[in-house]
């Protein structure tokens, strides 16, 4: 987070305050139960608790937005982070590859949970 004195958009200051509050609120929902629920089906009709978690992590991207790159059609997916510069493709975040889209999506979910829990 940047020093507030360096921010010209005061809305950004409010966003940081809001993000701190909602992150605390969402942390209380991060149970092994909802993590297991997401692992079972990242695209299912989820419980209200998991929906609240997903609603937050899908609308905020404090460390850049993650996406999946299909590196071999129907066989291999990897996790990448979007560049904020036009003309620069997303870059892979690590060496892991996944043999299903669902597993790769769950890995992204775990990374986002880890970010939420980081102090």
């Amino acid at each position, binding site marked *: 987070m940047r020093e507030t004195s360096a921010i010209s958009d005061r809305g950004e200051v409010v966003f940081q305050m809001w993000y701190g509050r909602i992150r605390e609120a969402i942390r209380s929902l991060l149970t092994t139960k909802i993590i297991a629920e997401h692992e079972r089906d*990242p*695209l299912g009709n*989820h419980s209200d608790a998991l929906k609240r978690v997903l609603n937050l992590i899908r609308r905020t991207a404090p460390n850049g937005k993650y*996406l*999946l*790159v299909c590196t071999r059609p129907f066989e291999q997916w990897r996790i990448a982070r979007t560049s904020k510069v036009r003309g620069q493709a*997303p870059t892979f975040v690590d060496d892991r590859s996944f043999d299903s889209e669902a597993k790769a999506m769950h890995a992204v979910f775990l990374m986002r949970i880890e970010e939420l829990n980081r102090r």
Partner: protein
Amino acid sequence: MSSESIHGYSDRISVSSGQRIRFMVSAEGGTSYRADIVRLIRGDTNPKGPGPKEELIETSISNEYPARYQPVYAGSHVLIDDPAQLLNLGIAITLHAFIMPTTAGKGAQGILARWDPELRMGWAMVIDEQRQLALWIGDGVGHSLRVAAPTPLLDNVWYSAGTSYDSSTGRAIIDLRPLVNSVNSLVGPVAILPAPITHETITQQIKFSAESQMVFAGWASGSSATGATIVDGHYNGKIDRPCVYARALGAAEFDALATGREAGGVGPIARWDFANEIASSSIASDKVTDTSGNNLNGRCINMPARGMTGHTWAGRSEHFIHAPAEYGAIHFHDDDLEDADWKPDFELEIADSMRSGAYAARLRIRDAIDYIPFFVRPVTARPTAKIAFLAPTASYMAYANEHMGVGAGIEAIIGRTAVVQQQDLYLYEHPELALSTYDVHSDGSGVCYSSRLRPIPNMRPNYRHETGSLWGFAADLDLVGWLEAKAYAYDVITDEDLHLEGTTLINSYKVVITGTHPEYYSSAMLDALETFLIAGGRLMYLGGNGFYWVTSYFPGKPHLIEVRKGEGGSRAWQARPGEYYHSTTGERGGVWRNRARPPQKLVGVGFAAQGFDYSSSYRRMPDSRDHDTRFIFDGVPDDELIGDFGLVGGGAAGHEVDRYDLSLGTPANARLVATSEGHSDSYQRVVEEILFTYPGAGGTQDPGVRADIVYFPTLGGGAVFSTGSIAWCGSLSHNNYDNNVSRITANVLDHFMADDRLPST
């Protein structure tokens, strides 16, 4: 990524027997590439489906071709024709324009320039690297000067911007005055803005004659392989009423120009009024007119946006034809592109033996492959079948090269982590291939024009969308594959044909079938389908969110569409106030619903919700058991779920779904024969249906979030069958085409293509 790369495009998208189509190719990673023509049967590579299928067609173009790299030069500008070199001024000069920069901090950018960047020769009014208005002067032999305003420019604020220089005295003036009224700029008159300045300095005495071409919004830096002027230093923002004087004006004269008065004395050598091309109904022109009498006219390259509010916009008129003097601006973008302008590689004449269908030029260089899709249509008014598949090419163009996978908020919008393909990565690394109507320009303004004269990696038979599923052209090949598997004789026609030829194109068919997402419609296309249905034609709308955005084709340029996303509708951006009207036709942009043509009036259903996590299925309704609708479900058990399987989200009802709604014009005789259920909260009620907001607009709580299957007859023996879901066609191939979605589609098609009267309601 591998070093081989091959991409291309064609000059036409729809051709008939005897016509010729040219293909432009850029290939790297080898000395030659292979080209063949294939007929496309299926595209989807999903191993859970029947797999892709194409047939090699024997044509004269099958061959090896020399590989060459062909670059693309994006960015819009104006080139001035000056055969008499009137603008080759070398002693004294004044440059003036009203400007509204949108990314003043992006680096040096030309506003008005006759400048050779290599030799530093000529003259230019620019925004420099410090976001200051500046004058550049140079003689090309080592003498040059740069004079800049002391304060930086603000984005999205109108200015009167003037620069003058007299080589006999060395006097240079930068005159900069913010011109903010209540509506023309991002901020209003209550904002404290930098004070107007007239910055005067005595500097070197340099003669500055140069032979460069005059450019607005950049400077000429060379010539391309096709002889076109290459322009660098593209400007983002608006320019209004630029002019050039062959003498150096002073502060009092700049004051006159800033307030719209004459400077007095000898008039300008050129003064361009971009409102001059505003005709009685549109600005369908690339021309820029010099009103000084010197005939220093110019032409727009790469479609900068016209019909845009100028510095005098007062906010009372919203259409450029009603207040042309307030719409004297052109908005330039450094990522506009109308035509990649490559040299052609080969040309195909369509043989009589090439039956109507979806085709592609298949290009291969080592392991790299590309397909350039095109459609072979029958000769006008000579159908070869009872069925026409109307390929939604306007929608393909609207989505061409969309960058939503890396766009803001995409995870929330699609309800899942986006997944991108090699084709997407290529697009992201090659911004010169430009954008779609789902993107914003580098200055944040919406992309309102899209051209097909460029490589379009996301309109390919094997392309998968960021939702992890099929979309557009690739999804529509599921329908083509089904027609082939079921051995139906069919013609393929395109939106472009329908727009240009109207009902004549379709009135001899018994049945017209749409694609999965025929979202972008011109007035002429809607009129043609309406007339067809009134005259007894039968329409199968096998998609979702169709007939939605008002779309214009640039008259005389069928490769170019315009879409202004207005107030309402599921929109990637919204046109700025005063800019809702299409420059190319003068029509009000936005969703057809806001122009009194909701899709329900044409096909009985209209856009209700979208979500991309999973697709669901339909349940039959009481209307499906009536004597006049029973034929639809012949062979389908009464209590069977419809389409609880499929390759697009796992079900037939999903992605974007449409609903029956009498209040939006669904005909009263329409039968609601099936409706979907079980959608998740990723499916939210569309924004155009939200008046007051309240919780519970998602699929688990809102009864309006659903796909409806609707059937109704029209006058004269015509009829409409709508499935209201993008995912429908993705279920056709399930179980080797033996399933209830396939059966229902065939039941309806068999009845619609028969000469018999339909059961009447």
